[in-house]
């Protein structure tokens, strides 16, 4: 019996790949299951716009389905979309990407990130990234058999990444720096000077920079600085962008990578075997978004900005001190007024007051002591959530 169990165990252990086993299971599975069993919860744990994709974008996609545009497109993505995107990026970022060879249409930034990692990493290559950061960053590096290297960020420096901290972690195995600004979960935006400092580190050590800029349009109080537009950075940057947040197109799964011909060719090689092409109707929708979606973007961003101010003030008033997030749609308040961990705080808040926030620890060890509150939800819900959180904090604050 024991012998058979051992060989069964061996088989089970060998069934799943080592790199998959290396991935941390979701830090919030238990929390998510608890939430699913409850009713009447105000969720500040959402991670996408509450807006629906603007009607003219949806209509264009619907029409294309009716007219029979249901076949594959070029692996690289529809030529019209790439041409429009090339023009759009030239105007927005001041960087010229040739539509034939320097742009790849992907299944969301998610796929673009995965492709970038698989295209550039050899086993053991190190990728430097901020902590806390979006959960996919570490995962994509691990899946590409690379090694994630975390750089702590903190409230004291508004969760911005310091070039000196990056430089201190460079080894002869470092291949790339992975940036995600404006950031999920912190809402942090990197000022131009700090980006330039990172660019200098990348240049000096000949590192690639993979820059996830999905929240590029959701910047309040200033303009977004595109990493690829920094002097000399175009060729060493893999610029990942998309439509999910700016145009409320999360469910469409459509994004892009913009990089040098060599990188795009490598990413396309993987993409053509694994995905073939991004959804055709999503590409048609994205084309319409670029052509006609600008006024909708501006309206949505103005709306988020108002809610941002409301939630940040509200959280600070309660005692959940929150630095001012200048981008994305997340506030990242500290819970140090209580003596709970992020997990405890989130769970207790959910059970006692039916408000869902995401524990900051789900995004890295530097997220411990914080919770992520998404303000892409109605004014009324934000206000009610704040009322409930105030009650909760008053009950649980340290003496």
């Amino acid at each position: 019996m024991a012998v058979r169990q051992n060989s069964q165990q061996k088989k089970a252990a060998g069934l799943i790949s080592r790199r998959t086993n290396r991935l941390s299971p979701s830090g919030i599975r238990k929390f998510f299951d608890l939430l699913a069993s409850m009713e009447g919860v105000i969720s500040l744990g959402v991670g996408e716009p509450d807006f629906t994709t603007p009607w003219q974008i949806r209509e264009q996609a619907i029409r294309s389905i009716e007219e029979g545009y249901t076949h594959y497109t070029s692996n690289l993505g529809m030529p019209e979309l790439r041409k429009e995107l090339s023009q759009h990026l030239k105007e927005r970022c001041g960087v010229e990407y040739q539509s034939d060879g320097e742009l790849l249409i992907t299944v969301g930034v998610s796929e673009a990130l995965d492709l970038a990692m698989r295209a550039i990493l050899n086993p053991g290559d190190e990728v430097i990234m901020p902590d806390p950061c979006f959960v996919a960053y570490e995962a994509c590096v691990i899946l590409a058999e690379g090694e994630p290297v975390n750089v702590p960020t903190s409230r004291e420096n508004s969760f911005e990444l310091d070039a000196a901290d990056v430089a201190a972690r460079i080894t002869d195995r470092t291949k790339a720096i992975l940036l995600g600004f404006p950031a999920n979960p912190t809402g942090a935006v990197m000022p131009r000077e700090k980006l330039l400092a990172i660019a200098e580190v990348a240049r000096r050590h000949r590192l690639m920079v993979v820059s996830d800029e999905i929240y590029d349009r959701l910047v309040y109080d200033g303009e977004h600085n595109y990493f690829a537009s920094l002097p000399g950075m175009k060729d060493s940057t893999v610029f990942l962008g998309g439509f999910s947040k700016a145009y409320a197109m999360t469910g469409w799964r459509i994004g892009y990578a913009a990089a040098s011909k060599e990188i795009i060719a490598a990413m396309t090689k993987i993409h053509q075997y694994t995905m073939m092409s991004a959804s055709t109707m999503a590409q048609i929708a994205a084309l319409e978004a670029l052509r006609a979606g600008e006024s909708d973007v501006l309206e949505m961003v103005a709306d988020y900005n108002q809610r941002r101010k409301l939630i940040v003030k509200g959280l600070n008033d309660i005692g959940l001190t929150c630095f001012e997030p200048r981008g994305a749609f997340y506030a990242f308040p500290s819970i140090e007024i209580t003596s709970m961990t992020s997990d405890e705080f989130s769970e207790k808040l959910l059970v006692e007051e039916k408000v869902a926030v995401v524990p900051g620890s789900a995004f890295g060890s530097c997220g411990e002591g914080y919770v992520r509150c998404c303000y892409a939800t109605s004014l009324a819900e934000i206000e009610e959530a704040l009322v409930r959180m105030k009650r909760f904090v008053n009950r649980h604050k340290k003496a």
Partner: protein
Amino acid sequence: MINKVLKILENDARVSPRQIATMTGISPAEVARLIKQAEADRTILKYKTLINWDKVEDEQVWALIEVKVTPEPEVGFDSIAERIAHLPQVRSVYLASGTYDLLLVVVDKSEHDIADFVSQKLSHLEGIQGTVTHFVLKRYKEDGEVLDKGAGEKRQPVVL
């Protein structure tokens, strides 16, 4: 600046001046002053609540009435439009381009009451050439609000 304040209030009249101040970055004192000014000069006409009366048992019938009018010398349509506006059943009065002159939104207890209103009140007014009454059978969207939004929250409650 006043536009930002008005847009917020038009969407939700319950938003307090304190909240408006936070959302817009305008000082609370300035917000209060702007609102007071707008109330005084009738930029803000009224604070109201949008009700879906179909959900409540209430006798209410809505009609859209096209009115053809003989315009008066010098005053044009203004005088007759103002006279019609005074009638309590009339919710809205618009001067519109097209095959008729005035469009009215009229609310009363029944079709019968609206028919009476048209034949006894409206048609008797001087200058009315003719009317066409359309009864509202079903409302799908009112003042920017879709009445039947279908399934509630479509988003996943937690997304990392």
